């Protein structure tokens, strides 16, 4: 099968880049005044960049389509992605409502899940230690105006 030997990851890369380039150029053309080279409007530079990106994306995609040996590609790690996303979201959503201490603790618990070897007792301990440490450094040491609890 010819398709199996194609570098599909890079074909996808090319398509995504070209799509992004076209979207930027199209949006800039549609919304901002283009102007002339001597008196550029706000749309000139973004339209130009979008065009260049679309061309580069097309070149990358085409070259990959014609290539026969795919290069090794990293595999996605949904566990790590989810854990880190959950951790940052938890911090962003709770730091005002609950205060720094519970928020930092939640972040460490969530992010720690990214690694399967981190079991719950260890995470609880790590959460407590890091919360205490960061409280000591940033609030006590550097005097940042963060409140510990807003309960």
């Amino acid at each position, binding site marked *: 099968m010819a398709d199996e030997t194609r570098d599909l990851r890079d074909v996808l890369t090319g398509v995504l880049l070209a799509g992004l380039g076209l979207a930027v150029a199209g949006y800039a053309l549609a919304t901002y005044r283009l102007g002339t080279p001597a008196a550029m409007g*706000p749309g000139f530079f973004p339209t130009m*960049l979008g065009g260049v990106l679309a061309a580069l994306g097309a070149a990358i995609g085409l070259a990959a389509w014609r290539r026969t040996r795919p290069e090794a590609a990293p595999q996605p790690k949904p566990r790590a992605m989810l854990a*880190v996303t959950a951790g*940052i979201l938890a911090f962003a959503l709770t730091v005002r409502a609950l205060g720094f201490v519970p928020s930092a603790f939640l972040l460490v618990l969530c992010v720690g899940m990214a690694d399967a070897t981190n079991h719950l007792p260890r995470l609880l301990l790590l959460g407590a230690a890091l919360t205490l440490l960061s409280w000591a450094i940033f609030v006590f040491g550097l005097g940042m105006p963060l409140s510990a609890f807003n309960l």
Partner: protein
Amino acid sequence: MDLLTAFTDHLSLGLSEALAPMNLWYCFLGVFLGTLVGVLPGLGALITISLLLPFTYQLPVEGALIMLAGVYFGADFGGGTCSILLGVPGHPAAAVDVLDGYPMAKKGRGGVALFIKSVASAWGSIFGILLLMLFAPLLARFARQFSPVEYTALMALGLVAAATVGRGSMLKGLATMVIGLIIATVGTDVNTGFQRFTFGLTGLSDGISLIALAMGLFAVTEVITSAGQKSVSPVKASYRLRDQLPSRGEWRRVWPAMLRGSGLGALFGALPGTSGGMATFMSYAVEKKLSRHPEEFGHGAVEGLAAPEACNNAGIGTAMIPSLTLGIPGDAVMALLLAAMMLHGIQPGPLVMVMEPQLFWGLIASFWIGTVFLLILNIPLIGVWVRLLQIPYPLLFPGIVLFTCIGVYSTAHSTFDLYLVLLFGLFGYLLHLLRLDVVPLVLGVILGQPFEENLRRSLLLSDGDFSVFVTRPISLAAVALVAVILAFSIRRALRAST
């Protein structure tokens, strides 16, 4: 002007500034934190500087820059330690240390390998910074006559060179660089006051927060990519000073290699985009070619460790010549240092040296002081750092994300920036999966606004005539180089596809 008097004037001015107690403290803190993070596998100068950027707001500008530059040098030293003892590169530029440093460590000569690495790095730094002090004023004087046309062409050269010299496909490097330029257009257009790509979000009207971008792309992405990987344990070695000293025969092989390495590094560092990985491997190849014992390379040849280390550090020094005098960064770390300058309201460029001589020469003198601190930290105290290598990574990364979030939140108490960090972290991870390098992107973001600004002014002055870029000698040379690099990358892409 007499080069030597100018040099001694600048040196004494710089030293008087850098030796001020507060600045000494920031310098020490920088190299200490840099070494600390550098020895931990996978964490390098980029993450540390990104993490520290928000905290430098409160510091005076000299202190902030001295500390961040110290982190740069410190992380470089620490990265080498990690390469030698774990066989895993602490950062890309230290990858070459694995080739001969790790075999030495496995033979029980880890202490000697670390000692040679520290001495070679220190020599490289001292030499590179000496060249920086000599040549930066000359280039700056020259650069003060540049018009927007020269700046536009030189920035284009810097961007294209940095985007294509890195690892992987040249076309991909160019593509991420263009994405960076596009990200830089987000916010209020300086010329017309127009809001571009803000989609009605007030948090974006001042442009994308550079701190959030750097933290997302470097710290968060790094955590996602490295989570779940197995920890490696370091090779045991003796770190008493007596056991670290190389034998007389080894010395005789080390010092000429150091000289050659630093010369090559200085040469390459001054060219845009070539610092770091490429020059060190070239220096390694040169040593292997010249050696009377090429069969020892890869099994613990001391030259193969000393020359690339000296090369790397000399290159850091000379790479700062265009970065500090023209304001055109050669790599991502320099881009972040220039960003720190801009956060403190100083526009990087040839005028910094004239308007802020104390800051400029104080910063450069602090590099030498930092090197002395690093020798103290890395030779007698090396055993302390080695123990740090044993911290398992699963315990480390939640702390990185926590410090990232605290840092970003503390700058403006805005949760909007936290969402930006998350967004850029995931975006960086997507780029990683697509095998796209983020470094050119950051250079694009930093240079985007000045590049657009100078391009507009050039064409305004020439009344829209693009030939202005090829009728002035310096600009013509830069444009010709850009054309050569582009032609070369297109040819390589075509050849790879058949």
